């Protein structure tokens, strides 16, 4: 198995595990971890793709590296925001459940 193949299979596995977790896990914190696993899979794939520049005679393609850093920062910001929301939710309702106790018709105050 070539190095590229190892990276590709790892990325596929991470994305698959993450997507499964994001859909199946009911707890928001687990969903968040799953999102991060899935994101890591995408980053691995993107990093491995940078090797493609080698075909054009360059040591590597620098563009994926630059985009990757941005994507990681965005994912980090998203994670921080989700955690902040989750903490607020737990503080105000004493539960982290995403399913509401009241029927959807009564949601909202205003």
């Amino acid at each position, binding site marked *: 198995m070539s190095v590229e193949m190892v990276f590709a299979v790892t990325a596929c596995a991470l*994305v698959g595990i*993450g*997507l499964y977790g*994001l*859909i199946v896990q009911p707890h*928001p914190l687990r*969903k*968040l971890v799953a*999102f991060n696993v*899935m*994101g890591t*899979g*995408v980053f691995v*794939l*993107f990093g491995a*793709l940078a090797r*493609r520049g080698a075909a054009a005679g360059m040591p590597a*393609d620098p*563009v*994926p590296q630059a*985009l990757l850093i*941005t*994507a990681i920062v*965005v*994912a980090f*910001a*998203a994670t921080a*925001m*989700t955690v902040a*929301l*989750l903490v*607020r*939710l737990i503080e*105000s*309702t004493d539960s982290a*459940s*995403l399913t*509401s106790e*009241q029927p*959807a*018709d*009564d*949601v*909202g*105050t*205003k």
Partner: protein
Amino acid sequence: MDEATSTDGGLLLAAAVLLPFVAMLLGMAGGGRQVQRVALAVMPVGLAIAVGVAATWLDGSRPVVYLLGGWAPPLGIALRADGAAVAMLLTVAGVVCGIGVYALGDFATPRGSAETRTSFSYWLLLLAVWGSLNLVFVSGDLFTLYVALELLTFAGVPLVCLAGSGETLRAALRYLLFALGGSVLYLLGAVLLYGGYGTLDIPLLAGRVAAEPIAWTALALMTAGLLAKTALFPLHIWLPPAHGGAPAAASAVLSALVIKGSWFLVVRLWFDVMPGVVTLASAQLLGALGAGAILFGNAVALRQVRLKMLVAYSTVAQIGYLFLMFPLAFDAAAGRIADGLAFSGGLMHGISHAGAKSAMFMAAGSIYSALGHDRIADLAGVARALPMSTFAFGLGGISLVGLPPAGGFLAKWWLLSAAVGGAQWWWALVLLAGGLLTATYLFAVLSRALRAPAAPLLLRSSNSRWPRPARWVRARPKRPSAWTWA
């Protein structure tokens, strides 16, 4: 497309994106009392910039382009505004200005009153939504679009939970998790495209992309991710509690504008990036999901007890119409998606829905703040007590039903013509059934509002007979901008 330099007026595109963000930073530095002044001051400027972009585009009759730092793609990043982007820029600028005037009623901090965090956040987030949307419309490459989408999500989610109650926090968290899943799928698709074709610039990519497995996979992943963000049936479950629970001025932003960002990106992908990659089956599937949204959303809207939830479910249904343009624009003979009547109809629907839905949410908000509730069964007498709000609600509804002379009529007419002209009659049936269902819940609300109340209506707030002017300015669903590109 060869573009070595920016076109005349290209700098306006950068200004359209930067202005709201600069205003947001100024407002953040200025504090709660200054932020609304900054926001209201930049609104006319932003509108003028949008008009300027439109004038430049009409003048040159080709896309307005701005190359950041003078570097041409694939090395640099380009901002581009074609007809669709110009139409959306104008729509968003107009609707934001209208919502801004309305929001003065809920989120103003008059001299002498204490600053509140809710008002402070609202104005900052409104500006952030505006800037992110402008970036979505003018971005020329798929990665900038990813960042713009994330900015839009980060600005939209806190708008849901401005009230801070547990129920709205839960709705916001659910929305955020859906959006995060969607964005990671979108990014995966973009990465695959970069791996396959070595560029993310839209015109360059459109020239290189071919109908092969990697393009299909990327398109499927990106579309699925964007559908979760747009809340197309059956991924709509986060939308009604999020949009129905937010304060009215925030619901109007979310329902009229924020969902249009990810929808516009689907349009970009299908029409501009991969018109030859999409297949008849995939276009029909997107249309079928749209039809499901129209029938399900309207049917559930009929069962709603509260006015704001009814309007939120009506958004679920109206999103369906936005996706009917894909099968209708598919040219089966050429095996590709093509600009035409269906494209104009879909875009027109996006524009008229932005006006109509913001008007309906703001009217519902006025009714709520005047009555202290928005139970549809107890609306008797509202038409007499709040004539302008009821009128705005009715006008918005007329546009959604598709009665002339509203913008919604023109949109439905074009979509219907495309359905009949393209021999796809089943979409025409869906369009007509959706219009009937919409009319049913509109009349269910209006007939109750027009009824004489059993007991004299007690108004909680001193809402005057002639309320804030914004409500009825925004209520006119037909706007001249819609004609410029038609």
